[in-house]
């Protein structure tokens, strides 16, 4: 397995009186796409938000490229090269598509070549370039959220449920886009509920339950083991393609 870019060790997170993450340990290998799976309420979103510094870890350590980033504020983490796409997409509805992307660019101007590449992944971004982001459809908003995260090369991409509420055709578009992203050797950590999406893309997998990691390994191994899927994820037969 490749060297880890992100490493969580014994991470605990409290939100108010609730103890959500209860000692999370897992690694995201450099250049891979890791799927973080688990039932609703397992702590997947909290895990991403803790890595991004949006919630503070109350114990344990988070290392990024060998550096302890547990206490770093969110803007510093972003400047280290971590991009985050939240579950609600976090687009700025009152800004245009262009302004949303411009805001994410560290450079003052957008890189035209990179932009063309993004338009190739998501043609809708070009079509609605000067349109208000708030008027886009749900699928287009998700495309914008991902486009914003990759408007410049980033070292780690954190994506929370990119297929949530999307039509099958849009999910197919997302799968192709993530495959293209994988070809750029970007390290990606995706929280996902859609097992078909996860098995189509994942190199490695971590499964969470009740605030802990209960399984890690190769995605292919989990995809091939239906009994393990049922035990870890409670997948019904219908959920398996």
């Amino acid at each position: 397995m490749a060297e880890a870019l992100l490493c969580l060790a014994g991470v605990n997170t409290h939100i108010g009186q609730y103890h959500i993450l209860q000692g999370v340990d897992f690694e995201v290998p450099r250049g891979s796409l890791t799927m973080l799976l688990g039932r609703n309420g397992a702590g997947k979103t909290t895990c991403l938000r803790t890595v991004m510094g949006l919630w503070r870890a109350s114990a344990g350590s988070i290392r990024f490229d060998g550096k302890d980033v547990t206490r770093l504020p969110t803007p510093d983490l972003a400047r280290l090269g971590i991009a985050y796409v939240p579950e609600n997409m976090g687009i700025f509805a009152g800004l245009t598509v262009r302004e949303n992307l411009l805001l994410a660019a560290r450079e003052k101007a957008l890189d035209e070549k990179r932009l063309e590449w993004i338009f190739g992944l998501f043609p809708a971004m070009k079509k609605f370039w000067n349109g208000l982001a708030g008027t886009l459809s749900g699928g287009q908003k998700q495309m914008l959220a991902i486009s914003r995260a990759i408007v410049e090369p980033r070292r780690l991409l954190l994506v929370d449920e990119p297929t949530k509420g999307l039509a099958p055709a849009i999910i197919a578009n997302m799968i192709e886009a993530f495959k293209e992203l994988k070809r750029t050797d970007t390290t990606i950590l995706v929280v996902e509920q859609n097992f078909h999406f996860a098995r189509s893309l994942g190199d490695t997998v971590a499964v969470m339950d009740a605030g802990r990691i209960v399984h890690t390994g190769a995605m292919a191994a989990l995809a091939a083991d239906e009994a393990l899927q049922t035990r870890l994820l409670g997948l019904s037969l219908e959920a398996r393609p």
Partner: protein
Amino acid sequence: MNTARRIDWIPLALVGALMLAALPLVGSAPTWVTLTVAGLAMGMMVFMMASGLTLVFGLMDVMNFAHGAFISVGAYAAASVLLSMRASMQEPSVAANLSAMLPAMLAAIALAGALGLFFERVVIRPVYGDHLKQILVTVGGLIVCEQLIHVVWGPDIIPLPRPAAFTGSIIFGDVAIERYRMLAVLVGLAVFAAMWLLLARTRIGLLIRAGVENPEMVESLGYRIRRLFVGVFVAGSGLAGLGGVMWAMYQESVNAQMGMQMMVVIFIVIIIGGLGSVGGCFVGALLVGLIANYIGYVAPKLALGSNILLMVLVLLWRPNGLYPVGKS
């Protein structure tokens, strides 16, 4: 699908419709013109005082009742400068008057801005995210500031004559328009234009607009929203100081309670406009200024409640204000 950026003209059209609707009620065209200019002037001054507060609320969800203190302190700072330059103020020359007014305005902006910086660091910062504590400490801060004004400038009302070149009226036929009100309209328009340019045409403006919608996401993109907030807070406090100067010269006096007295109108304006929206604040201020003047003339007994009535009607029509800011 038409997703092109477009301006919602309906609230702006409402301002025009209100003016036209008032004409038959007022009955006399010259009186209507006088009232309209008075309403616009009042609206512009309220806009200057309120615009900073709406951004502060939108950006960091902070309810700052001490905003009134910045208005009063700005007015007092300017009064000190203006009274020390009395000779320039009494000359019937625009240039001589402006040579006193500009330093006075700068002093007001600087002192109110500095007070804003102190407030953000000492009073507001410990109570981020807790509205109840924000109300308690900022109301307390407002009272403390008023008492400090009494200590520094004394408890008496300070008369503040208008600059000589801006007293009296310009007569067009039967229409009399106060010179000072025209000045207030011009200053208000200049402030609005500057804010619009900043928000619409600059990267910092882009960040402020994004921060009002979703501060957490702005941080996730690598920007320190707290620094942005401090900048907006200080600028908003300075603008309140500028509004205080204009209002004090309009009232021709300065007193420590003037900021607190304006807070009800300011809150009505930012609620009507949509919390966090500068454009909404501008339109809301114009509506409030116009309604106050028209109703004050047509039905003086209703004048006190007219702004509340306006707020109720606007919120029944658009519950999140004229230009709601999409929070996510």
